[in-house]
């Protein structure tokens, strides 16, 4: 056995070692009982197992993914799906063969449909077929990734990722994929190392048993030699010791070696991110994304729903400042019934504040909910994708109007300060022209608009470098504008958590960085080394 070295791209940092779980379509192998009654019972149990498994997955997903899974559950609950299979079983066919041919007939019915929507459903039936087959043969399925294992696959879906237990270690090694996929984001949030773009995962004979994943360097070693494994384990032990030391210090405020106090804020994607977190680890929340509200509500969330969520986040912060971003839909974040389908270039289209101003009836509801929540803590509101001052001015007028209306009704409310995100190079270059209460630099979009390279296109992702001097110059320019106007400025976005950039970012004069909770300890440790 020789070890196999594969080089890909780092998508989520960290080191992991573990047994390999292949997600490639497993060929079901099972021994038939020969007894039709037993075969029918086995199929019934497998269908129920598959149904229960998907029902569990649904609890963890939202929006369109949930709709697709609900459809699969409805199909599995319908006896008509397995009628032909049971018939074949009673004629002496083994359960797995009977199920496969019944479902293949169903699948070819969809594949031959004239309507493309029905043709596309063939993939769902394939999914159903394979999940039940996996239950019949006892093969591990997508939804049962063993905790602590290294998942090797061409691709992995967010629902498959969410179904696995990542608290016991484990990592992801993908033939394809992208560091900017939703799964990569989830992996970074959960602390699971991930490497993508390894190329075809093919083995000579036996699939690998063990893998070492280096999510910092972007490499994977399958079936390592004992010496390779020993060296890797030593690196893991050292990294863990450093992590433990960093976490012990994470409730202490962040200071550079030369004594500069740096605010470390949290990025929050959903209120659940805060569960079990001690607010003392941070100086506040620098970014609350509100897209989750719109995905979860299967439409547009009403004012009271939004108010309740905002209020809960403010309560968690215990008086620390909380910056909530108004809806940032569009681009790579479509929301049904709100965003425009089929734009030729969604990233240059109706997204962020542009969409909110185009749909004032939706925007007003959010502004009202925010104004009502503002009485419960230190709330700041920021607008995404601002390009020109007129956008801020229009939003300002709308906020004033809603605030005045609430006050006239006698509803408890406060007018939160309104700041802007600096994501468009035009806004960075002219930051001083905006009458904003604060700036928050969104480094992900600022980088992709400056470098003209998308985050999620693997072949140009190297150009998408937040550390490029051009991006750094725009950041420095924004910090300078903030100083001149005497308003606060912070940076949220992946660059804040990239500890290779910490020194350069603080050199621009930034004193506030906002990162995912998982990155707080690492960032504070990196800040402590700056200026030493």
């Amino acid at each position, binding site marked *: 056995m020789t070890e196999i070295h594969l080089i890909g791209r780092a998508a989520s940092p960290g080191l992991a070692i573990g047994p390999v779980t292949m997600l490639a379509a497993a060929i079901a192998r099972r021994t038939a009982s020969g007894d039709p009654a037993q075969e029918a019972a086995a199929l019934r149990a497998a269908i129920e197992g598959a149904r229960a498994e998907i029902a569990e997955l649904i609890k963890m997903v939202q929006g369109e993914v949930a*709709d*697709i899974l*609900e*459809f699969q559950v*409805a*199909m599995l609950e*319908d*006896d*008509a*799906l397995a009628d032909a299979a049971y018939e074949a079983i009673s004629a002496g066919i083994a359960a797995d063969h009977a199920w496969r041919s019944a479902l293949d007939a*169903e699948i070819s*019915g969809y594949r031959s*449909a*004239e*309507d493309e*929507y*029905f043709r596309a*459903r063939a993939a*769902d039936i394939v999914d159903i077929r394979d999940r039940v087959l996996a239950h019949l043969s006892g093969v591990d399925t997508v939804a049962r990734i063993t905790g602590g294992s290294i998942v090797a696959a061409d691709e992995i879906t967010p629902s498959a990722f969410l179904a696995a237990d990542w608290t016991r270690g484990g990592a992801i090694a993908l033939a394809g994929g992208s560091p900017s996929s939703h799964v990569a984001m989830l992996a970074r949030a959960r602390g699971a190392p991930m490497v993508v773009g390894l190329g075809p995962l093919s083995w000579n004979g036996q699939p690998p048993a063990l893998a070492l994943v280096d999510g910092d360097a972007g490499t994977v070693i399958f079936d390592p030699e004992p010496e390779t494994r020993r060296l890797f384990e030593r690196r893991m032990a050292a990294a863990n010791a450093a992590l433990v030391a960093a976490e012990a210090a994470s409730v202490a405020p962040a200071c550079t070696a030369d004594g500069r106090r740096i605010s470390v804020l949290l990025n929050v994607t959903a209120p659940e991110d805060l569960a079990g977190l001690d607010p003392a680890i941070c100086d506040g929340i620098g970014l609350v994304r509100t897209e989750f509200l719109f995905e979860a509500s299967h439409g547009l969330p009403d004012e009271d729903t939004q108010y309740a969520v905002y209020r809960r986040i403010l309560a968690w912060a215990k008086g620390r400042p909380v910056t909530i971003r108004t809806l940032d839909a569009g681009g790579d974040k479509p929301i*049904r019934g709100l965003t425009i389908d089929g734009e030729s270039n969604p990233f240059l289209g109706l997204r962020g504040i542009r969409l909110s101003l185009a749909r004032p009836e939706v925007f007003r509801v959010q502004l009202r909910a925010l104004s009502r929540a503002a009485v419960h803590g230190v709330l700041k509101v920021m607008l995404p994708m601002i390009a020109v001052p007129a956008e801020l001015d229009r939003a300002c007028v709308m906020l004033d109007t809603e605030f005045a209306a609430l006050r006239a009704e006698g509803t408890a409310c406060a007018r939160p300060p309104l700041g802007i995100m600096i994501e468009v190079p035009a806004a960075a270059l002219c930051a001083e022209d905006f009458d904003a209460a604060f700036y928050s630099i969104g480094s992900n979009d600022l980088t992709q608009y400056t470098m003209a390279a998308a985050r999620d296109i693997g072949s140009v992702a190297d150009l998408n470098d937040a550390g490029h001097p051009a991006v750094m110059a725009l950041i420095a320019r924004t910090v300078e504008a903030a100083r001149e106007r005497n308003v606060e400025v912070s940076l949220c976005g992946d660059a804040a958590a990239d500890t290779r950039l910490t020194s350069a970012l603080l050199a621009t004069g930034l004193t506030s960085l906002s990162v995912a909770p998982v990155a707080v300890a690492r960032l504070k440790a990196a800040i402590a080394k700056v200026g030493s």
Partner: protein
Amino acid sequence: MHDVNASRAANAFVPLMASAVLVNAVGLHARPSVKLTQCAKGFAAKIELALAPDGPWTDAKSPVKVMRVKAPQGATLHFRVTGPDGKAALAAVLALVHDGFGEA
């Protein structure tokens, strides 16, 4: 769009018939099928649908069978409802179709 034959004699199980045009963007695909069958299952009556007034009839409580119909946008869905709560059942499924299954 309705032509409910409410000519119910003493026999409570005379089939009720009505039709409606599929107005939602993609026809009777996955989500609408699930919604329709969930709605239908809420009634005791036997509820069937077809693409032609004379059938062939499909059990509207079975998502597998409803999906096999592959009814595209613009198709006319005919319903045949038989049972004690048939009138309410027919009104409910027609409302769902007219409403574009809430996704128009």
